[in-house]
């Protein structure tokens, strides 16, 4: 099935998901062109109203301004860049590590499995937030450290899932056949097992991506994530959280942006996973 045909046959939910993801990607790639104002440009008074407020002061801002008078829409668009890139990078890294180690544990078994399993247990034994806080406090809150810490923490969860899924596949006769053929561990992991666990892993990727997103937002919220004045949806919520008590809608916009992306990605992944099944199970 070609890509175009697949798109044409996609159900409505998948199309909505694709549209949402496309919109975000567009903002991510062309932020300076799309955003009406600069990332840190102050355009008006704090918490000015947006399109809903006929009495809005200063230059027209669609979604109003934040606590420092910066344009919320522009910051959301720039924030997409930082938040999504960071989350994507982190999730990819955690999946690479988690899946490779999980597959290795499942294929080699024995001592390798035991050592990896116990190491993961060890990392998992720490509450994630405390562990992240500890590392970030010691090593400083720079982007590489942030990515590394979150990826490591998340990789433990991915490891568990990849290992469990791979164990089921590794018990199948075709893996035995591959062993009897004299295939190496790498081939068995990559060619025999991985294609059979792609679907659950992809579904997990969508979920994990959103969790990472929220985790970065949490860290930003307590001031250890992305540092100001860089725009990031999590820190945008934090900086403007107080506004809620005054009945100002502003903090809901970055929160909504996170929620919408989460939904979009999961819609796409559900469809991709189902499509994968459909093609292979056709008799």
């Amino acid at each position, binding site marked *: 099935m070609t890509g175009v045909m697949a798109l044409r046959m996609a159900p409505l939910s998948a199309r909505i998901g694709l549209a949402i993801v496309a919109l975000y990607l567009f903002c991510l790639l062309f932020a300076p062109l799309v955003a009406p104002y600069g990332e840190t440009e102050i355009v008006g008074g704090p918490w000015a109203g947006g399109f809903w407020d006929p009495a809005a002061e200063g230059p027209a801002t669609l979604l109003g301004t934040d606590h420092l008078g910066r344009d919320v829409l522009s910051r959301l668009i720039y924030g997409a860049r930082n938040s999504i890139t960071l989350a994507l990078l982190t999730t990819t890294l955690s999946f690479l590590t988690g899946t490779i180690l999980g597959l290795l544990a499942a294929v080699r078994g024995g001592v390798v499995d035991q050592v990896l399993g116990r190491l993961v247990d060890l990392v998992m034994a720490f509450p994630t937030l405390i562990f992240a806080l500890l590392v970030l406090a010691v090593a400083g809150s720079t982007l590489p450290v942030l990515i590394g810490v979150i990826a490591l923490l998340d990789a433990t969860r991915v490891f568990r899932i990849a290992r469990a899924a791979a164990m089921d596949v590794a018990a199948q006769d075709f893996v035995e056949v591959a*062993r009897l*053929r004299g295939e190496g561990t790498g081939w068995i992991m990559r060619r025999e097992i991985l*294609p059979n666990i792609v679907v659950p892993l992809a579904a997990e990727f969508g979920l994990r991506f959103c969790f990472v997103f929220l985790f970065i937002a949490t860290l930003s919220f307590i001031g250890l994530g992305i540092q100001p004045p860089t725009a990031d949806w999590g820190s945008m919520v934090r900086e403007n959280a107080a506004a809620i008590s005054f009945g100002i809608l502003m903090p809901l916009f970055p929160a909504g942006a996170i929620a919408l992306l989460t939904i979009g990605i999961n819609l796409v992944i559900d469809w991709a996973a189902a499509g994968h099944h459909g093609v292979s199970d056709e008799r």
Partner: protein
Amino acid sequence: MNAETAGLAEAVSRLRVEAGGAPLLVMQGLVIETSGLGKVQRIVDGIDLELHAGEVLGLIGESGAGKSTIGLAALGYVRPGCRFAGGSVLFDGQDLLDLPPQRCRALRGTRIAYVAQSATASFNPAHRLIDQVVETATRQAGMGRRQAEQDARELFARLALPDPDHIGERFPHELSGGQLQRVMIAMAMICRPDLIVFDEPTTALDVTTQVEILACVRNIVEAFGTAAIYITHDLAVVTQLADRIVVLRHGRIVEEAPTRAMLAAPRESYTRSLWAVRQIRKTPEPDHGAPLLDLDGISASYGSVPVLKDVSLRVRTGGTVALVGESGSGKSTLARVVAGLLSPTAGGVRLQGNGLPRRLQDRSRDQLRRVQLIHQSPDAALNPRHSIREAIGRPLQLHSGLKGVAREARLRELMALVELKPDLLDRLPGALSGGQKQRVCIARALAAGPELLICDEVTSALDQVVQAGILAMLQRLQKELGLSCLFITHDIATVRAIADEVVVMRRGAVVESGPRDAVLETPSEDYTRLLLSCVPDVDPDWLTRLLQQRATAGDLTDAR
């Protein structure tokens, strides 16, 4: 069904109606379709059936013929993904397809019962057997708990279960497969239904156990006058039980006749082909070649459980040794030892006089190439995500370094060898039938260029007709390529079809071995005789005769 047979069947059923009142179950023009998206397939296509009270009807056909679907339709049920698309199922005068779901459910278990193929998969492992057996009786039929339990114990006794008074207290995993199957029959009988559907209840069992189950089924159906639909793909089994046989193919009735009439004079060529495996017979060629594989005093264990005890056997170049025994006798374990998947605790494996390392990791690629294992289930042995080209092409690349055009040419040759069309090469295994998949597995083994094939029950999961095709092909390949074969099976008909020599195993040890005809015709051990006596013949009197013999000669099962 052609017009003539239809007319005949009609006449027969008219006679029946006049003789014994209205039939218990009538299916008229039953059509069942898959209801998924995409193309709709008719899996049952216009079936007309009649079953009278107390009658046993045998449904026979290859897998995919719609046997189980029809069996379930007798309960007014279709599997998820299917739907009734036409016709009617009249049970005792009411159309199950029109009944409200609740009333239909109330009939199931109380008046119509179902016995599934795998008893192990059908019991809930978390509950005691007695609770599961009496559930329908107490919840649906309004029987008192105590009375239901009493009744269950009587049924257990009647089904010859050991310790009938207390066996219900056990959990499913504490019983053997054959015992569980009998408990399931008790569960089906507890409400004294008018109709029981048996869906291949003995297919997963050993022959020795199968005989016991067959005797139980017949005994209980006769005792309570229950009507039954008995579904199987084994002609010999169905002839022991059924008054009438219906042969199915592609969801349609091929032929329907009383059992003896069908056996004496099958009308359709398809019906005759159901005998197919039984008609292949290899002329054994004993003692014709140097020993290729030599097993010397092999012992092996899983953890601390010993599975093989001092097993020695020899396969000659170009010869076939059949390894026969019940499940748990260690046949497959021996295959794993030879292949290197399990290290023996004692003894050695020699190929052409040279010892093979015990562990897989220590064997060279060339040693791996020379011994190829073909698994029982082609579904599990083929990676569902690899196309046929990848599956067969990989050993070509790995063992003979073929690439590009040469590899493609060899691929086509191999496909021709296993009688498959080359356009299947780009398909995924899911798009192939069971028989085709097994042929792909054989082609994959041949791609390595082996000297010894270990066939581990390669035809057990297949239908008689497909089985016959594969066995004939294996024999041809063996002759053409000069392969030796260690053939593991529990089916004596298969042994006759393919073996030169036979080794009988039991509880991890060799009981008897020798040339095929010597072992099969004049067995010297009691156990071999028992095993052979349990293989059903296509003869409606076989079971009766066997049970009589056992009754008079004292139970041979004592030898077990």
